[in-house]
Structure formats: structure tokens, C-alpha cells
């Protein structure tokens, strides 16, 4: 037990970076405002999501009460949480169990596989509470207060809420361990990242689709209908995965019956956990070791091929651009985070035209009227700009170099050329995003071709400016110390700061456009003025970027 606790303590420390944090703020005296800022933005961002979610739950609760099944809100919350944890848990577990770097250190230690597995399981469990608690607590509180529940409800509830992630995580773990034992999935780690991201994407689209379908004004009726029509579905899921129903029954059934369901839920969770640990001893290391066998093509390159490949000479800027492009395209986590938005945005735009065809046809009719066409074009510009610039390609491009930044410092290429290659890379992707948006706009809103070309051009100029700003932000405070590429982008405040800069710029441009329209300035003057503003902002920004690059490429130490 002592070794287990010590292993757990060390792992929590490593995984959540506690010592590293302490060191940063006590020894290195890094800026303390950063984590406070991050925390604040999480509270504000997460808080508003939580309020929306709580309102949805309240709707379900009241809808349920109307058909005298108020507990449906609990079933819904437990089921949604457990399903979500089950699905995403599979990817989370895979990465912590099998793809983390510490296995090479842990396997040779005199520890039983079950101990290592147990520690990793607890770490995942802690991580999952970040999802489970915000999802379950509002439902738990809404029902508790809404039905004036007694003290036993609250006591049992706290235990059930805390235990809720265990069951789906155990099931996901068993699935992953068996999978790893028989299939060498390590080879396709990249594929897993892509699959996980796609899943998230589709889930996002699904939620979007659902919320777009909520009619305004008669939400309550909608929820009653939704529950009535989906009760079959909830029951069907409940039949397949009864524990989420047991949790509800354990909380809401009176007396002994309730206690029975409670014991059933808790007992099953603990029993399955024991099974998992037993399985850990039998299969965990074997699967890991089998997956370690690296496969290599080792196909010799023929003499002609060698000749061809080594005879292409590029200028340094082109070579740097190619490096940037290849590394970005070949790292799934970069690709998914960098261009997912670009791909999803056109779909989001097309969706209302399908789900709310009637209202949108009115929009289209207005957009076609000569009087409103300029406004439609400017709004389209806003949409295109938003979709193409809300990414982290430029604002993490120094950070993404991470441990390989020494090469950029070593090579005899001026910092000016190096950032120029990065600017070209991010702006190429921006242009692709703009075109991906422009095409559906052309067909849906019937914007004339010359207007489309003008707004795409202005959008491109604005994107160049935004990418310059992103690069400046990343140069000012690059995050070069990371072990896993996802830290370079997901745990990087720069991406967030750059998005704030985008919003600021869009507010300025949007405000000016509205002002000019109200003043009755003609359409082409507006385009001209917008272009002028962007160019005026870009020139000093670009020179600022070059000066900063020169300074930072010299002063950053690796």
C-alpha cells in the first residue's frame, strides 16, 4: 500500500505538473498573471456554458414534471455523462495506458501491473471529474431542490456522482486492454488522434443541429414533446446500459428499494474495478510490450530515386516553408486543431439552409435585392473572415517547433526569412479556408462573382494581418518546452490571445463598416476604406514582426 500511495503521489505530481508549476513560480519567478488569466477565462467561458446546460436541464426537469416523471432529468444527466465518458474515455485511456512515455520507466520497477494500472486509472478518474461534475451536479441540484428531497438523497447523491465515471471507465479500460492485447494499435497512434477528433467534431455538429431545432417561444412544450418522443430512446439505452437507470432509482425510489439500487450501483462499480485490476495483472504489460515492436519499412531507395530526390534545390525560404507545411500536415493533432474549424465552418453555414429552409429563403431573397446586396457581401466578408482566422496556425508556429527550435537557431538563415516562411505557410492555409467559405456563399446567397472576388481579397489581406499579429504573440512568449505536440497548441495561451486579437480586429472593421453604411457611403468606397485600414495596420505590424524576430531568435535560449 505504501508503494502504491507513493506511486500515486508521484504520478499525480507528474501528470498534473505540480512540481513544475511550483518551480516556475517560486524558482523561475515566471509571470503569475498567466495562470490567473487562464483560470479566469476558463471560469467565464465554462461558466456561461454551464448556465446554458443548466437551463437545458431545467427545461427537461420541468418537462418531466409535467408528465410526472421529474426524475428523467437525473436519468438524462447520468446517461449522458456515462456515455460521454465511455466514448471519450477509450481515447483518454489509450493515451494514458499505452502511449505515455512513463511506461518505459514503470515496467522495470518491482511493481505489480495492477498497481501501475490502478494509479493510471485514478489519474484518468481525476481528469474525468472535470467533465462529470459539471454535467452531473446541476441535474442533481435541480432535482434535489425541485422536489424538496431529504438528507438521504443528498448523501447518496454525492457518492453516486463521485462514482458515476468509474463504471464507464472500467468498461472502456477492459475494452482497450483486450484490444491492445490482440491488435497492435500502437502503429496507428496517429489514426487514433484523427478518430478521436472526428468523433468530437461530429458530436459538436450534432449538438449544433439539435439546438438549431429548438423552436423559440414555446420551449416548455418542446421539452415535453422531446421527452415524450424520446422516452423510448432513453428507456432503450437504459435497458442496454441499466446502471444509469439504477443511479436514478437509487436516488429517487423510496426506502429500501432505493437503498437496494444504490448498493447495486456502487457494488457493481467496485466489483468491475476489481475485475479490471485482475485483468491488469494478466494482460496489461503483455499488450504494452507487444505494441512496442516498431515497424519500419527499411526499403532501400534506388540509385535513380536517390539522384532525383537529392537534386532538387530550393531557396532557404522555400525549404523552410516546405518544412513547416510537411510537419503541420503530418502531425494529426496540429492538422485537426488547425483546420477542423475551416472544414466545419462551411457545414455550419449550410446547415440552417437545410434545417430552417423557409426562413433562410427569405434571407436569400433579401440578399439578392440590389439594395441589400452590398450589405450581404459585407456580412459574408465578416463570416469568411471569422471562419478563416479563428485558428492557431500562426499563433503557435514558433511554439510548435518545441525541442527542435535549436535547428532554427543554428541554420544560417536570417530570422526575417524564417518568420516570412511561417507567414506564407499560415496565409496559404487562410486562403484555402477563405475559398472553402466563399464557394458555399456564392451558391447559397448568390453573391455576384466580382463582389466575391473583392471580399475574398479583403479577407485575405485581413488574414495576413491577423497571421502577423499571431506570429508576434507567439514570438513574444513561445512555449517551447513540451513533450507531446498537443501541449504546444492545446495548452498554449498564445492561441487564445491571438483569437482575442482577431475578435478585436473584427469588431473594429465591423464597426467601421456599419458606420460607413449608415453614412450612406457607396459600396466600393467601403471596400476601399477597409482595404486601406488593413494595409495601414499591416505595414507597421510587419516591420514590428521582423524587428521582434531578429531580437527573439537571438535571445531565446535552447
Amino acid at each position, binding site marked *: 500500500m505504501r508503494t502504491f500511495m507513493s506511486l500515486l503521489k508521484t504520478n499525480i505530481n507528474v501528470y498534473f505538473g505540480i512540481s513544475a508549476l511550483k518551480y516556475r513560480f517560486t524558482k523561475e519567478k515566471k509571470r503569475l498573471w498567466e495562470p490567473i488569466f487562464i483560470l479566469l477565462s476558463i471560469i467565464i467561458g465554462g461558466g456561461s456554458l454551464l448556465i446554458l446546460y443548466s437551463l437545458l436541464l431545467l427545461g427537461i426537469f420541468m418537462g418531466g414534471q409535467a408528465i410526472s416523471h421529474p426524475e428523467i432529468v437525473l436519468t438524462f444527466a447520468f446517461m449522458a455523462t456515462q456515455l460521454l465518458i465511455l466514448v471519450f474515455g477509450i481515447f483518454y485511456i489509450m493515451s494514458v495506458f499505452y502511449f505515455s512515455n512513463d511506461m518505459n520507466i514503470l515496467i522495470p520497477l518491482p511493481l505489480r501491473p495492477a498497481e501501475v494500472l490502478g494509479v493510471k486509472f485514478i489519474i484518468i478518474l481525476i481528469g474525468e471529474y472535470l467533465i462529470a461534475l459539471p454535467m452531473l451536479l446541476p441535474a442533481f441540484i435541480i432535482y434535489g431542490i425541485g422536489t424538496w428531497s431529504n438528507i438521504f438523497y443528498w448523501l447518496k447523491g454525492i457518492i453516486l456522482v463521485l462514482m458515476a465515471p468509474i463504471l464507464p471507465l472500467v468498461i472502456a479500460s477492459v475494452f482497450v486492454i483486450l484490444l491492445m492485447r490482440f491488435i497492435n494499435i500502437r502503429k496507428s497512434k496517429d489514426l487514433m488522434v484523427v478518430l478521436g477528433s472526428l468523433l468530437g467534431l461530429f458530436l459538436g455538429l450534432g449538438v449544433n443541429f439539435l439546438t438549431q431545432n429548438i423552436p423559440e417561444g414555446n420551449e416548455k412544450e418542446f421539452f415535453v414533446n422531446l421527452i415524450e418522443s424520446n422516452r423510448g430512446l432513453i428507456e432503450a439505452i437504459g435497458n442496454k446500459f441499466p446502471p444509469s437507470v439504477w443511479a436514478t432509482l437509487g436516488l429517487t425510489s423510496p426506502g429500501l428499494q432505493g437503498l437496494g439500487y444504490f448498493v447495486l450501483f456502487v457494488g457493481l462499480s467496485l466489483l468491475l474495478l476489481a475485475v479490471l485490476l485482475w485483468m491488469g495483472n494478466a494482460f496489461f504489460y503483455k499488450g504494452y510490450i507487444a505494441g512496442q515492436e*516498431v*515497424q*519500419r*519499412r*527499411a*526499403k*532501400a*531507395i534506388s540509385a535513380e*530515386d*536517390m*539522384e532525383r*530526390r*537529392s*537534386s*532538387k*534545390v*530550393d*531557396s*532557404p525560404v*522555400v*525549404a*523552410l516553408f*516546405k*518544412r513547416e507545411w*510537411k*510537419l503541420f500536415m*503530418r*502531425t494529426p493533432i496540429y492538422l485537426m486543431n488547425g483546420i477542423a474549424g475551416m472544414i466545419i465552418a462551411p457545414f455550419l453555414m449550410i446547415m440552417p439552409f437545410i434545417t430552417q429552409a423557409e426562413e433562410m429563403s427569405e434571407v436569400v431573397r433579401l440578399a439578392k435585392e440590389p439594395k441589400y446586396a452590398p450589405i450581404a457581401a459585407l456580412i459574408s466578408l465578416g463570416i469568411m473572415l471569422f471562419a478563416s482566422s479563428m485558428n492557431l496556425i500562426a499563433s503557435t508556429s514558433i511554439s510548435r517547433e*518545441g*525541442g*527542435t527550435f*535549436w*535547428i532554427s*537557431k*543554428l*541554420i*544560417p*538563415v*536570417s530570422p526575417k526569412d524564417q518568420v516570412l516562411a511561417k507567414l506564407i505557410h499560415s496565409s496559404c492555409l487562410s486562403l484555402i479556408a477563405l475559398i472553402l467559405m466563399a464557394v458555399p456563399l456564392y451558391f447559397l446567397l448568390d453573391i455576384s462573382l466580382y463582389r466575391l472576388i473583392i471580399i475574398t481579397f479583403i479577407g485575405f489581406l485581413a488574414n495576413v494581418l491577423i497571421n502577423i499579429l499571431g506570429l508576434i504573440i507567439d514570438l513574444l512568449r513561445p512555449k517551447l518546452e513540451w513533450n507531446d505536440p498537443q501541449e504546444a497548441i492545446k495548452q498554449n495561451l498564445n492561441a487564445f490571445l491571438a483569437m482575442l486579437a482577431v475578435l478585436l480586429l473584427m469588431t473594429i472593421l465591423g464597426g467601421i463598416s456599419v458606420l460607413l453604411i449608415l453614412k450612406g457611403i457607396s459600396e466600393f468606397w467601403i471596400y476601399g476604406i477597409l482595404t486601406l485600414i488593413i494595409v495601414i495596420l499591416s505595414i507597421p505590424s510587419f516591420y514590428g514582426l521582423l524587428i521582434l524576430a531578429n531580437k527573439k531568435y*537571438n*535571445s531565446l*535560449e*535552447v
Partner: protein
Amino acid sequence: MIEISNLTKSYNKGRIKAVDGLTLHVKPGEIFGFLGPNGAGKTTTIKMMVGLLTPDNGSISIAGIDIKENPLGAKQNIGYVPDNPDIYDRLTGMEYLNFMADVYKVPAKERKERISYLLDMFNLTDAVGDLIKSYSHGMKQKIVLTGALLHNPAVWILDEPMVGLDPKSSHLLKEFMRKHCDQGNTVFFSTHVLEVAEKLCDRIGIINKGKLIAIGTMDELRHGDQADSLENIFLELTEV
């Protein structure tokens, strides 16, 4: 070829002096071995020589070019291999070599010859089409070496170059170093393997706690005592 004078670098706001007033001169045609206990300041010195770290004080010139005044010119003359290189895992070996050749502006003909010569020497030709991700530690070391020497730099600066190399590659590298210096160039390398330093180096420098405590040929270090091995000299000098 390499002129370092009064080089100083400290960490933690001056409290820890990693390199302390280091002055040394490496002549053309010389293989210079840089020795010292762990944490003595070897890697810090080397990183300052190639521009990865900025010195607090002092100057460095490589092939007559001051690294601070004209960093790009100085870098063009350096071939550097770090002790534990992090490189672009998601490029193939060939893509990496072409990238290095492009940024060092190696002309097509020379590039072709050097690539095939070096790959052949390090026995990497078969692997060069694979992603670097799939390479072993030693193969990574060799691809970095190849990339660093493609532009035929006058000064090689190698941090622990033999670590991770198999005996044959290590032997070939040593021969290659000798050949390079016989053509009037310079090799500066750090090592913990004293036998290698003893046999290979024209001159040796020993650094301890950031200060150069001995420099000279093997004979000069022995002070006339021919039986003294480098190991004994090293242990005596670096004793606390």
C-alpha cells in the same frame, strides 16, 4: 579557426557561473578535445559557440568571423551536432537532409555527392526514405551528423559525437575527423571517453566549474612524466 576570449555565462541571475572567463584558441588543422566532469560547462560553452546561447560576456569567432557581429556568416562555417538531438520526427531522412542542404545553400552537384558519400559511410542509405520517427538513437545521431556536414563546414563542433554510434561508425567518424583536419580544417569536440581523446586529439582542454584548468598537447599535460595517463591527469586536476 576558433577564438574564444573571456567567455562568461551565468544562470539564476548571476548566482551560478556555468562558464567563467574562458579563453582558448584552436588552430587550423587541429582536433581539439574538450573534457570535463558532468556539469563543468562543456555543453554551455559549445552552445554559445554555435549561437544557441547568448554569452553574458566575452567574444567568439569562428573562421575569423565574430558570431555576434555576423551570426549568419559564422554559422555558415559551422557543422554542429548536439549531444542528444531533437529533430523533425515527421520528416523522412532524405527530406531532412535536403532541408539542411537548402538552408546551407549547398549546390545540387555537391549535395548529391556529399549525401551519397555520407549515407554510404554511415550505412544509412536503406533507411533514408523512412520517417526519422522510426530511427534508433544511433541512426538519429548519424542522420544529424550527415545533415551537419553536408555543407562541408570548415569547423566541426560536436558534443559527445561517439555516444550512441556503433563501433564501425565511430571508427569511421574518427577517421573522417582526422581527414578533415588534415585538409587544414578544425574539429572541436567534447567527450567523456578519455582513451579517444588521448589517441585522437592534437590538443586537449579540461574545464571544471566553468574554468579552463588545463590546456595543451598530451605531452604538455603530462609535464614530462611519460607514464602518466590522461585518466590520471584528469582525475588529479578535477579533484575537489
